[in-house]
């Protein structure tokens, strides 16, 4: 079953920049997909359209049965509840502990405390931070902070996990740990993961599906792909289906 179906999507920003052009791709449930491309190529823009941070200017973007292009602002939350998002800069609340940061998501959704607790502990356990539930973010390493962010993103057991350069601020060793966690989430709970990255080594090692975007255009889509952008540009549009 297709979880994501993008057809001829365009994103033209108000200042006239065409960040994504005529992008079509579909992604199955449970897939792990890398999105790579040089800086400014449109990776983040593509990802932002998936969780409706940006509205596609043209074309259709359907995520989990919701037509993102037609989704009204006041209904965006319905889409957001089906997915989790992780960023390069973690976006944790500095005055809240690890536990509170993860619980925050469920609290705002109005879950009762006795349901929140087991879910939060499970998510924290899944990212291996059981020992640090009472720590504040500034008492954690970068990798640990990113793990808190991942725990928060998966605490509501979403079908889709979107990561925009989650290892961008981390050293190679820590990046590997994060990748191991994401891989485990992908395998164990069949969560679909889409991850934009610059990290050549990671992509090459993981042997997952790779989408290459250059200048807003999807130039390559390979199963068990690797980080070979330049060749794909010379030899474009090897479409995956």
């Amino acid at each position: 079953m297709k979880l994501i179906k993008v057809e001829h999507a365009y994103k033209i920003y108000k200042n006239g920049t065409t960040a994504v052009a005529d992008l079509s791709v579909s992604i199955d449930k449970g897939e792990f997909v890398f999105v790579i491309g040089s800086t400014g190529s449109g990776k983040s823009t593509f990802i932002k359209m998936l969780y409706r941070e940006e509205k596609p200017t043209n074309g259709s973007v359907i995520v989990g049965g919701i037509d993102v292009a037609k989704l009204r602002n006041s209904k965006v939350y319905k889409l957001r509840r089906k997915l989790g998002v992780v960023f390069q800069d973690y976006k944790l609340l500095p005055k809240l502990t690890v536990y509170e940061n993860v619980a925050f998501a469920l609290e705002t959704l109005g879950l009762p405390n006795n349901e929140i607790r087991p879910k939060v502990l499970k998510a924290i356990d899944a990212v291996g931070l059981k020992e640090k539930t009472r720590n504040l973010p500034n008492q954690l390493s970068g990798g640990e902070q990113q793990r808190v962010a991942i725990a928060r993103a998966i605490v509501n057991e979403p079908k889709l996990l979107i990561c925009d350069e989650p290892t961008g601020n981390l050293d190679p060793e820590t990046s590997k740990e994060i990748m191991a966690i994401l891989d485990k989430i992908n395998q164990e709970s069949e969560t679909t993961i889409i991850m934009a990255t610059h990290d050549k080594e990671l992509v090459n090692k993981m042997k997952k599906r790779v989408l290459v975007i250059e200048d807003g255009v999807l130039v390559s889509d390979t199963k068990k792909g690797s980080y070979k952008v330049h060749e794909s540009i010379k030899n474009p549009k090897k479409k995956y289906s």
Partner: protein
Amino acid sequence: MKALRILRRSIRDSFKSIFRNFSLSMASILCTTITLILVAISLFLSYNVRQITKTLEHELTIVVYLSPETTEKQKIEIENDLKTMENVSEYKIKSKEEWKAEMKKENETLDTTLEYLTENPLLDSIIVTVDEVRNLHETTEKLKKYDFVESAEYGEGMVENILGVFDTISIGTMSIVIALVLVTAFLISNTIKLTILSRKTQIEIKRLVGASNIAIKLPFIFEGFILGIFGSIIPVLLSIYGYTILFNETGGYVFTRIITLVNPFPFVFQVSIILVIIGSIVGMIGSWLSVRKHLKI
């Protein structure tokens, strides 16, 4: 249940935020307090003025003196006119004999003087009570137009002055109150703006994890509401105790026994409810303005 939990957590967040931005919250609360104290004063003034005006309406009369040549026919004519005349609530004939008797009772010298006179020098009169004190003058003028009316009088000047002072007081307090309400709403909206800005990440995360717009906005609206309620505490206490003490100290009278103050109970409680309502509404309007402007979601 779920809505209730969101509500409860919103209220908790609002309280946290108020204490986190303590000095700013205090400024908003103080401004609300001052505004509401003035609102209270203007309420007390206007209610009492209304009561006093009502009293005056019953006490103030036009005395119409009929010339000695007035015939019985003319008396019937004016009586008939008075029955249908605008602004006349009732009238009473007071003959010169009645006047004489009254004067004799009041003053001994007059008593003996009047005894010496064989002819009663006083005039027959009609005492007219009006519906609307503000139109006292017009009605008097109308009555003066009869040929056989010697004169028509009321507490000229005094009434106009009192009513004029009352009008000035209510217009003055009203405009001050409106200006202060606006300032308060603005100050509260400013407080909420800073709260919103200081919680940018929190709002972003809430949006990201799928909180509905209402769930995101609610804590800010509550914050304004709570600021307004806090601001109304002192004015409410002042109203209840202040007015009751004033009433007891003066015995409920101002200047003369004619002008009585409105009884404090349940009056002060009605005023208190109005103050709390105004405070909370101004608070919510202030935060709503800010949410609309700075929380574009």
